[in-house]
């Protein structure tokens, strides 16, 4: 054996034990400060951009939560509403209130009889204004036979006008609201007959071509169904795949192929998944078109790679000593994984799930191929019914000519973000519960 012990002289060769250059130290500390600043800047930049986006969305969209109503004195005469005098709710509901409303308007502004002018006058009210009257009557059947002041929905243009989106200064030709209509509206306003109410219909209605009637509920339910399917498929499949590849599969050519393959799937454009869904689910299996069931499956396939990749990274990061500890006590590999490794990897898995689901929530392109980019007025009742999802609704509204849809579009984005925040909040809370450093 050689004697490696250094001689005392060896130690003294290095002049002073501390050869640290103070200039270097200063530089290093400056670098440290800068680095930290970069980090903070990065986070703040990202947050700032987010705020910018949110501000622009909210400032454009918050008005959609309000709706202009006009108070109109409607003579609810019994002959029209309830000629048989049964006073049963069904009969009251089945009656037509459009005529009454029109009569009321004409009474308010006598002397209008040109066909065109009449149309303009009726156009002040929303296309479904008669339902407001009906609801008022159903709420209080005693009103029948009296003249009641009922708040009915104004049309989208009138609504826009009162929200300040239409200016009177523009020449009449270029204005959606003509001078006569303005004069009527002024009358209403001086009579204090213009009120604004919270736009409940936005949350309870399905899609409509009339901005004042259009609601988000159909899309919310569609998204809910779709994402439920997506999550139910991609989370277990993704996690199981990740576990298999990371913990059980031997490292050989096969697992390499699977790994590359999964990474590659993440790069496949989403519309191609739509093509796949069209070919497999619709054409081969004959599943219904436009259904959340199919949409969910397509999105699940699309989300799968994200979850698998994130889960594998998370599993890999669990220290082997934990696995040894469990195996040493006589846990099987399966038990080791499910009792110890998986819970420790959960934060990472959930991150992947959050990102994947967020992507699925905002995706439109693949749904185009399977018929979910559609006008669907009815609220879907099951996973097999035709439905759209929130981003599609946003996409459709954003492409509508009517000005009234501008604020609806932003409002729908706000709803989608709220949806996202709720979804993420659940996952984030779960993630926090699993998080620990060792």
């Amino acid at each position: 054996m050689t004697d490696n012990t250094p001689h005392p002289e060896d130690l003294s060769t290095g002049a002073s034990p501390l050869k640290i250059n103070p200039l270097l130290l200063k530089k290093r500390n400056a670098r440290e400060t800068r680095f930290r600043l970069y980090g903070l800047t990065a986070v703040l930049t990202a947050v700032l951009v987010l705020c910018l986006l949110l501000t622009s969305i909210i400032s454009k969209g918050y008005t959609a939560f309000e709706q202009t109503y006009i108070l109109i004195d409607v003579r609810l005469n019994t002959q029209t509403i309830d000629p048989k005098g049964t006073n049963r709710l069904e009969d009251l509901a089945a009656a037509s209130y459009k005529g009454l409303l029109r009569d009321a308007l004409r009474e308010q502004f006598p002397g209008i009889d040109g066909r065109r002018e009449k149309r303009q006058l009726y156009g002040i009210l929303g296309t479904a204004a008669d339902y407001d009257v009906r609801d008022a009557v159903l709420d209080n059947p005693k009103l029948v036979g009296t003249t009641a002041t009922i708040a009915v929905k104004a049309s989208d243009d009138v609504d826009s006008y009162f929200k300040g989106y239409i200016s009177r200064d523009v020449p009449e030709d270029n204005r959606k609201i003509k001078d006569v209509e303005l004069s009527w509206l002024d009358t209403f306003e001086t009579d204090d007959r213009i009120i604004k109410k919270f736009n409940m219909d936005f949350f309870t209605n399905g899609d409509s071509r009339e901005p004042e009637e259009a609601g988000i509920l159909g899309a919310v339910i569609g998204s809910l169904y779709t994402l439920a399917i997506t999550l139910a498929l991609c989370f277990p499949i993704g996690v199981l795949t990740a576990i298999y590849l990371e913990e059980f599969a031997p490292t050989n050519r096969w697992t390499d192929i699977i790994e590359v393959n999964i990474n590659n799937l993440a790069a496949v454009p989403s519309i191609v998944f739509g093509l796949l869904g069209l070919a497999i689910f619709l054409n081969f299996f004959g599943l219904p078109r436009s259904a959340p069931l199919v949409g969910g499956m397509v999105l699940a396939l699309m989300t799968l790679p994200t979850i698998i990749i994130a889960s594998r990274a998370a599993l890999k990061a669990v220290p082997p000593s934990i696995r040894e500890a469990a195996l040493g006590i006589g846990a099987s590999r399966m038990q080791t994984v499910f009792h110890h490794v998986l819970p420790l990897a959960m934060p990472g898995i959930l991150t992947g799930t959050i990102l994947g689901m967020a992507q699925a929530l905002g995706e439109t392109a693949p749904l185009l191929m399977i018929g979910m980019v559609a006008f669907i007025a009815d609220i879907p009742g099951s996973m097999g019914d035709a439905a759209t999802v929130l981003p599609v609704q946003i996409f459709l509204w954003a492409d509508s000519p009517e000005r009234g849809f501008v604020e609806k579009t932003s409002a729908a984005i706000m709803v989608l973000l709220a949806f996202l925040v709720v979804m993420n909040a659940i996952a984030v809370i779960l993630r926090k519960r699993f998080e620990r450093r060792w």
Partner: protein
Amino acid sequence: RDQIRIVGSSTVFPFSTTVAETFGKTTGFKTPVVESTGSGGGMKLFCAGVGVEHPDITNASRRIKASEYEKCTKNGVSITEVKIGFDGIVLANSKQSERLTLTKKQIFLALAKQVPVDGKMVDNPYQNWSDIDKSLPNSKIEVLGPPPTSGTRDAFVELAMEGGAKTFESLKALRKSDKKAFKTIAHTIREDGAYVEAGENDNLIIQKLEANPKAVGIFGFSFLDQNADKIQGSIVEGAEPTFENIAAGDYGVSRSLYFYVKKEHVGSVPGIEEFVKAFTSEDAWGDEGYLADKGLIPLPTADREQVKNSARGLTSLSM
């Protein structure tokens, strides 16, 4: 299936959905599901066959092509054609700039890839509008328009560009001798950045026009109608793109819109006949109908009567 399924053109989509919604509200039938797949995509789905998994109606912003008709027939689909009205294709710019007055010839010169200069075809040399004609503003040619994959672009090229090309004697002669070569010239839009393919989101184009007053946009009339306070339609061949002008056929760049009904499904999918009836009622497509409010330019009264009869009688289309 107890619900009508409609596919097809994005241009007809706003009208079709409006009718669908009204139809759903005023009748006992369910509201039809209307998909926006583009005219060609709609045809593809529509002609794929008969049965509940196939749509009942397809919308188109152009007439069905012979090849599509053949495919339909081959798959046992017989169809009824319904022409529903017109859509004007407008060129528009921001109100902050002055309104353009153009001829088709100028449009062609501004946008074609190759233009005749001194009898020879050269790559489009015009950078500013004023290079084409002194009367036009001295600003860069910058046109935001639909991509080649869109029906609107097709129609625009056919109506405006080809119309403009025909005004050149040399090209007119070429058209007689070599139709293909003529079309290549007339239909090819420049790719040097003066024409910007801006996707099919027309609202986006309008917002971009607002942000950039120098730019000119190409889109359907209904968007101009809704945004008349911000943008103005260019005058083409002396006619302003207004409701009346387009309806009267004075405005040259307009096309017909259609929908096609699958006859085999009539009677089996509930409500198809009633839907056709609702669509072809005066209340909907008439001069004072609600579709006019949405920007559809109605057919002349006589045409309406004729189409209505053939549609309600489910007359088979033959080509």
